[in-house]
């Protein structure tokens, strides 16, 4: 069997293992080892297993991951999400579909300090659902807005998935963060537009609230200041050159701990829970990175990426055509694969194509993160849908899946805009870095 064909067989075996519930990291590792031995012989085993996991996990730049995870874990438990929601409730709750829009706005702002979609969705569900349900919001609109709003956590910087993309493709984390800024805001605006349209078409789905006046609106703004302050300190410090992204993550984690302390919510249980969450998420991410490093060695030595690049060359597609093709494949895969795993499995194959075609890697990164984000809300394996369904009593998965459909349409509009107008992603990084 030729090396490229071995690569194809390996990828099929990988999907087969994943489909029988082998942890994705282990599936990648096992296929990488077996494929590597088949192509390179037994001597490669010592190198792949003895060096690759260590080289991958002992890099200083990877320290940014657990520190941002810790920042999100403490921010989730500091009660910041409730304040944020109440503030936006007071500011825009009187709009048509105002509470759903407030939920999306709160998700966007909370995602900015949390960096994780699942944590954003779960945290905001606890805060927003009782209020929206109490006022009489339709459960489809409520759950759809929450599931979609939760995805903003990985697009609006600082985002853990962006960090992983930047590290794997050797891009600047700072440029990646800047590139996600406008698309993140665009996503939030499109979601709010979707809510407004739904509330206009079906007024019974979203009862209107009374406007909040004067002093109460100022109080609402003050409630938002801790979370906005934390975001500005972290991102401002990174872009003002005061500290690196890794140091920024450390400052963010410290800030979240201090905020939790100032709000009186830093007890023993909260610290323990935040540390356990940090441990779980970090372990999951590092294990997947180790699996990816082993798989990557196999894929590279199989020369499969080269064969695919040559094949795409024969198709005569333009760079945009290639991007559209890749994104369509990603969206289909995203329905069946965990989003992060999908990105990590496919990057060793796809990124060489992107480089060969001269496509801007930062722009490509934003597009990949955007479709990864869509994968979080596409049934049957949209993780956010499960998180929302499991966070709210008596809420069926099917209701959440139906509620998210209009927001998926908004996502497709956004991705089309991002493909058509690369400046939406590249303007800020080119301007500031």
């Amino acid at each position, binding site marked *: 069997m030729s090396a490229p064909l071995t690569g194809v067989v390996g990828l099929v075996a990988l999907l087969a293992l*994943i489909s029988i519930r082998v942890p994705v990291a*282990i599936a990648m590792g096992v296929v990488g080892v077996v494929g590597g031995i088949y192509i390179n012989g037994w001597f490669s085993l010592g190198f792949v297993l*003895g060096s690759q996991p260590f080289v991958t996990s002992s890099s200083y730049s990877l320290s940014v991951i657990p*520190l941002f995870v810790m920042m999100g874990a403490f921010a989730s438990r500091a009660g910041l999400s409730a304040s944020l929601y109440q503030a936006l409730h007071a500011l825009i709750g009187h709009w048509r579909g105002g509470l759903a829009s407030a939920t999306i706005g709160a998700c966007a702002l909370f995602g900015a300090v949390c960096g994780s979609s699942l944590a954003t969705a779960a945290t905001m569900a606890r805060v927003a659902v009782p209020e929206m349900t109490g006022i009489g919001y339709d459960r489809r609109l409520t759950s759809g807005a929450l599931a979609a709003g939760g995805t903003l956590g990985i697009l609006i910087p600082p985002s853990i998935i962006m960090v992983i993309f930047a590290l794997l493709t050797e891009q600047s984390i700072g440029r990646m963060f800047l590139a996600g800024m406008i698309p993140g805001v665009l996503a939030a605006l499109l979601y709010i537009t979707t809510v407004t349209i739904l509330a206009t078409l079906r007024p019974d789905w979203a009862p209107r609230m009374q406007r909040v006046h004067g002093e109460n609106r100022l109080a609402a703004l003050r409630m938002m200041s801790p979370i906005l302050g934390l975001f500005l300190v972290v991102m401002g410090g990174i872009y003002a050159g005061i500290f690196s992204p890794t*140091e920024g993550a450390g400052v963010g*984690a410290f800030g979240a701990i201090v905020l939790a302390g100032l709000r009186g919510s830093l007890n023993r249980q909260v610290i323990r829970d935040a540390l356990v969450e940090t441990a779980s998420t*970090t372990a*999951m991410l*590092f294990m997947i990175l180790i699996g990816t490093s082993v798989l990557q060695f196999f894929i590279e030595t199989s020369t499969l990426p080269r064969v695919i690049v040559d094949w795409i060359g024969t198709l005569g597609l333009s760079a945009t055509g290639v991007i559209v093709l890749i994104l369509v494949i990603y969206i289909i895969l995203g329905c069946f694969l965990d989003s992060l795993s999908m990105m990590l499995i496919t990057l060793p194959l796809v990124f060489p194509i992107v480089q060969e075609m001269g496509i801007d890697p930062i722009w490509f990164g934003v597009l990949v993160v955007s479709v990864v984000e869509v994968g979080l809300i596409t049934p049957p394996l949209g993780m956010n849908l499960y998180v929302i369904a499991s966070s709210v009593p008596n809420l069926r998965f099917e209701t959440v899946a139906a509620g998210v459909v209009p927001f998926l349409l908004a996502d497709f509009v956004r991705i089309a805009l991002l493909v058509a107008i690369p400046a939406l992603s590249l303007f800020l990084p080119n301007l500031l870095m």
Partner: protein
Amino acid sequence: MKRISLALALAGTSAFLVAVFLTVTDIVLRSFSGMTVYGLTDIVTLCTMIGAMLAIPRGFAAEEHVAVDVFTARMPLRAQNVCALVAALLALIFLAAVAWFGFQQMMREYAYGDRSQSIGIPMIFYWLPLVTGMAVAALANLWLVVRYARAVFGK
């Protein structure tokens, strides 16, 4: 096994807190006095290795590592247990192999006297969390293998 791996994860994750406080101290020091925390990069990397690697066994013991159950969830219970047994066996083999080859590489670097770049921490301290984490994670999977084997084959 769940308790042991949780204790290990919590102990390891405390290293992240050390990294956070040293990072902030370094920024404050260099902003106001021009001094820095000597060897911060090496120390933070070591803290990351300790925290991340010692947390990995808990992910397996609590079955929290990313896996796709959309197909297996519709299978009969016995078939689900067979899949879980296969998964735990593969994880056991892979993690034990990483621990074994990692241990060999660690001993080679120890023999060469390899040290970190800025403050010369012996590299064995970076290897130990990885080898320990992988070995304990392999044990966690051995525990899962026994559990699922009992479920599949009876007592």
